[in-house]
C-alpha cells in the first residue's frame, strides 16, 4: 500500500487531491483563525446566531415538507398499481432539474398579489387584496417550501429503493399475516425503510444548506446569504469566515449522516435498485385518489412553475437577443469546468485503483468539495486571492472560477466513472496485464473504451451542474462574464422577472438531460 502510494505514478493524484481540497481547507483555516476587525461578541450576537437559527429553521421545515411529498408518493408507486403509475414513477424525479432559485422566481410570481392564484381568489370571492391573508413566499417557510419542492426527489428515490428492496420480504410476510394496507405502511414499511429514507433526507438537506440563490431572492437571512453579505456589504471577511465554518459543519454533518444511514454507499442513488414486489391494483376510488395526489405533487413541483415561466416569457415577449452572449459565456465556462473536473475525476478513479491510501485521500477531498457549498468555496478562493495579493479580474478570475468548479464538482464526476468501473469484473485488470498489456497501452485499449459510457454520463452531469451553479460564479466571475444563472438572478432580484424567464427556462431545459438519464437508469433496474 505504502509502496504504491510513494511511487512517481502517485504524483498526479496527490497534486489533484491538493487542488481539489485547497479551497475548502483555506475556508476552514480562515474560519478557525479569524481574528481582529469586528469583535467576536458582535459577530456572535448580530450575525452567527441569527443566520444559523434561520438556516436551521428553514432546513427543519423543508425536511418535513420533503417527507410529506416524497414518502407517500414512493409508497404508492412502489406497492400499488393505479392509473398513471408508470409515468409518475419516473416523472416525480423531474423537479431535480429545477435549481432552487428558478423555483423561487416561478412561485414568487404565481403567489404574488398580481399572480394567478390571488387573482383567481379575488375573482371568486369578490374580496380586495387587503381583505384576506395569503401565505407569503418571502419568508423562512416560503424558502423551505421552494427548496423542498426541488429537492424532495432525493428522498423519493431513496424511499422507492427502500420500499422496493429492503422491506420486500417483511412486507410480504406482513401481508400474509393479514395486515391492512395502512397498517402495512405505519407498522412495517415505514419503520423498516426509515434509515434509508433519512439518508435521502440528509443528502437533500445538505443540498438545501448549500442554497444561496433562492434565499437571497426571497430575502431570507440564511448562512449562505450571510457569508456573501458579510464579505461584500459589511466588509467583514472574518464574519464571513466564521459563518462559512458553521455552514461547512452543518453540510458535512448531513453528508456524514447520509453516509451512515446509507451504509457507506454515499450519494450514489444510481446504484439503488427498484426491483419491486408484485404491485397490488388499487380499488377505483383509491386509484383515482393516488393519481390525484401524485399529479398534484408533480404540478406543484414542476409543471406549474415551468409553465408559468414559459407563459411569462411568451406574454411579455421576452427578447432572446441579449441571451446569446450569456449562452456563449455559460458554455465556455461550462466546458472549461467540465474538462477540468472530468480530468480530475478520471485521475482519481484510475490512479487510485491500486492504492487504498490514495483512494482514501481522494474520496475524502472529493466528499469535502461536495459537501462544501459554492459560497464557502468561493470564499476560500477570495481568501487565497487576498493572501497572494492577486486582483479578481481577467484571466486570474476565470482560472480561480474554474478551480472552484473543479473543487466543487469532481466528486460528481467520480461517481459515474466509479460506478462503471465497479460493474466490471474485478479480475479484469489482472487479466489485461497477464496478456502483456499495461500502462498507457492498457489505458488506451481497455480502461478508456470501458469507461466511455460512464464518462459520457459524468461529462453531462458535470456540465449541467456547472451551468446551474450560482454563488461561486457570482462571487468570482470577471467583468463581462455573466452566465445564464448569474443574469437570471440579477434580473429576478431587480424585480425584472419577465427578463429572468428565458435564462431560467434554458437552465431547466439543460437540467432535464441528466435527470432523464438518471430516471432511465432507475427504470432499467426496475425492469430487470
Amino acid at each position, binding site marked *: 500500500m505504502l509502496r504504491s502510494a510513494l511511487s512517481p505514478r502517485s504524483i498526479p493524484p496527490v497534486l489533484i487531491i491538493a487542488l481539489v481540497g485547497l479551497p475548502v481547507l483555506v475556508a476552514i483555516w480562515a474560519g478557525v483563525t479569524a481574528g481582529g476587525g469586528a469583535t467576536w461578541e458582535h459577530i456572535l450576537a448580530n450575525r452567527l446566531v441569527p443566520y444559523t437559527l434561520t438556516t436551521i429553521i428553514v432546513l427543519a421545515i423543508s425536511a418535513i415538507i420533503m417527507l410529506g411529498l416524497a414518502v407517500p408518493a414512493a409508497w404508492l408507486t412502489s406497492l400499488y398499481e393505479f392509473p398513471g403509475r408508470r409515468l409518475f414513477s419516473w416523472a416525480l424525479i423531474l423537479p431535480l432539474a429545477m435549481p432552487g432559485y428558478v423555483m423561487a422566481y416561478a412561485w414568487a410570481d404565481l403567489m404574488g398579489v398580481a399572480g394567478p392564484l390571488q387573482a383567481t381568489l379575488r375573482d371568486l370571492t369578490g374580496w380586495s387584496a387587503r381583505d384576506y391573508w395569503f401565505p407569503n413566499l418571502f419568508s423562512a417557510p416560503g424558502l423551505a417550501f421552494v427548496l423542498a419542492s426541488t429537492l424532495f426527489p432525493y428522498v423519493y428515490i431513496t424511499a422507492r429503493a427502500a420500499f422496493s428492496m429492503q422491506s420486500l420480504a417483511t412486507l410480504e410476510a406482513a401481508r400474509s399475516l393479514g395486515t391492512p394496507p395502512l397498517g402495512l405502511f405505519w407498522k412495517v414499511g415505514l419503520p423498516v425503510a426509515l434509515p434509508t429514507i433519512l439518508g435521502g433526507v440528509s443528502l437533500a438537506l445538505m443540498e438545501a444548506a448549500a442554497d444561496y440563490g433562492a434565499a437571497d431572492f426571497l430575502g431570507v437571512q440564511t448562512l449562505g446569504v450571510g457569508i456573501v453579505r458579510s464579505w461584500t456589504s459589511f466588509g467583514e471577511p472574518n464574519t464571513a469566515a466564521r459563518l462559512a465554518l458553521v455552514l461547512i459543519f452543518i453540510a458535512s454533518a448531513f453528508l456524514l449522516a447520509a453516509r451512515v444511514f446509507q451504509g457507506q454507499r454515499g450519494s450514489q442513488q444510481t446504484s439503488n435498485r427498484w426491483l419491486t414486489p408484485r404491485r397490488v391494483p388499487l380499488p377505483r376510488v383509491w386509484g383515482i385518489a393516488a393519481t390525484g395526489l401524485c399529479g398534484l405533487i408533480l404540478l406543484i413541483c414542476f409543471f406549474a412553475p415551468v409553465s408559468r415561466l414559459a407563459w411569462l416569457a411568451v406574454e411579455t415577449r421576452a427578447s432572446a437577443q441579449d441571451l446569446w452572449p450569456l449562452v456563449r459565456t455559460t458554455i465556455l465556462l461550462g466546458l472549461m469546468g467540465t474538462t477540468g473536473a472530468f480530468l480530475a475525476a478520471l485521475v482519481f478513479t484510475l490512479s487510485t485503483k491500486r492504492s487504498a491510501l490514495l483512494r482514501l485521500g481522494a474520496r475524502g477531498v472529493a466528499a469535502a468539495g461536495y459537501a462544501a457549498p459554492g459560497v464557502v468555496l468561493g470564499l476560500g478562493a477570495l481568501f487565497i486571492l487576498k493572501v497572494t495579493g492577486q486582483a479578481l479580474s481577467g484571466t486570474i478570475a476565470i482560472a480561480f472560477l474554474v478551480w472552484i468548479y473543479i473543487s466543487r464538482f469532481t466528486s460528481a464526476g467520480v461517481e459515474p466513472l466509479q460506478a462503471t468501473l465497479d460493474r466490471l469484473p474485478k479480475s479484469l485488470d*489482472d487479466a489485461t496485464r*497477464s496478456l502483456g498489456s499495461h500502462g498507457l497501452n492498457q489505458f488506451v485499449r481497455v480502461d478508456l473504451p470501458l469507461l466511455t459510457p460512464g464518462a459520457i454520463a459524468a461529462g453531462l452531469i458535470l456540465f449541467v451542474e456547472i451551468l446551474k451553479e450560482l454563488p461561486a460564479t457570482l462571487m468570482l466571475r470577471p467583468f463581462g462574464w455573466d452566465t445564464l444563472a448569474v443574469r437570471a438572478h440579477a434580473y429576478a432580484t431587480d424585480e425584472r422577472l419577465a427578463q429572468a424567464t428565458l435564462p431560467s427556462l434554458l437552465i431547466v431545459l439543460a437540467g432535464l438531460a441528466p435527470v432523464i438519464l438518471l430516471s432511465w437508469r432507475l427504470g432499467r433496474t426496475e425492469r430487470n
Partner: protein
Amino acid sequence: MSLNRPLVATGLSRSFSGRTVVDRANLSLEPGLVTALVGPSGSGKTTLLRMLAGMETPDSGSVQSGDDLLSGPGAFVPIEKRRIGLVFQDFALFPHLSVLGNVMFGLQKLPKPERLTQAETWIERLGLSHRREAYPHQLSGGEQQRTAIARALAPDPVAILLDEPFSGLDPSMRDQVRTAALDAVRAAQIPALLVTHDASEALLHADQIAVIHNGAILQSDAPDTVYREPKNAHVAKALGPLHTVDRDALPDAWQAQIDGGSKKVHYRPEAIRLGDGLELTISSMSLAGAVTELELDLSPTVKIIAVCQPGRPLQVGDSVQVSLNPELVFDFA
C-alpha cells in the same frame, strides 16, 4: 512454440499482516499435465496462484519456468512480462470486444495477418467459430469460459493457471465444458494449474493432485495415489468424506486386516461394503448424492458409516451383512 518447460515453485511463502497464508509451498507443474490444487477455502490456494502469476510478491521462495527465474531473491518479473495465461472464476472477458477481439488481445506483438490466423486457430480449437463475432454478454457461461481459455492460450504462454474456472457454470453443463476445456489445455503441452475446492472435479479431471492445507502443500501425486494413499488426515479429508472410529471398537477380524497400531483409525464410507460378513443393524439412513449412506450399530455406543447403491429395499431396523475393504482404512500414526 513455447519450450514446454515445467513451472516450479520452491519454498514460496507469503503472509498478510502477520498471518501466514502460504507457508513454504513446493509445487512442480509438468508440461502437458493438468495439476489440480485442492484445499478448503482459506487454505491459500488463490494466494499461491497469484504468486505464480506475478500478481503477488512472495516474501520468500522462488518461481521458475524452466531455467528462467520469475520470482526469487532479487528478481521479480511483473505479470505483464511473465507470459503466464490466466483464467479467472468470473472469466474477466473484455466486455467491449468480441470473441475474436478478446482472443486477439494478447497477440499485439505479432503482425496483423498472423494475429488473425493464430486467434482463429484457438477459436476453432475451442469450438467457438460460429460465435467469433459475438460479445461476451451474448455468450452462454460455457462459451464465455471457452473464450477465456482461448484468450489465455493464444499468446503461446509458458504455463496456464485456472482459478476455480468451472464453479460459475451451471452444474448440468459443467462436466461437458470441463472435459472439452481441459483437453484443449492439455493439447497446448504446457504446465497447467487448476485451482478448485471441488475434490470430485480434481479426482475426475486432473492428471496430478496437490493438496494444500494452511498454506502448505501436504501431498502431490496422481489422483488415485492421493485418494488411496493419503499421507495424513488433512489430505484424506480434502478428497472426500472420512470417518473416524476407535480401533478397539472394531471386530477382531477387521482389526487384524488393518496395519499400524493407532488407537483411532480413519476410513472412507466405501470401505464398509454390503456383502457377506458381519451382521449389523441399520440405525439410520439418508440419501447422500448418488449413494445411500447407512449408519450401522457396531455396538450399543459405536456406529459406523457405510454406503450402498440407492434403491435397495432397506429400512431402519433391518439387519445387513457388511465386509471391510482395508485399502480404504487409514492409520496415520
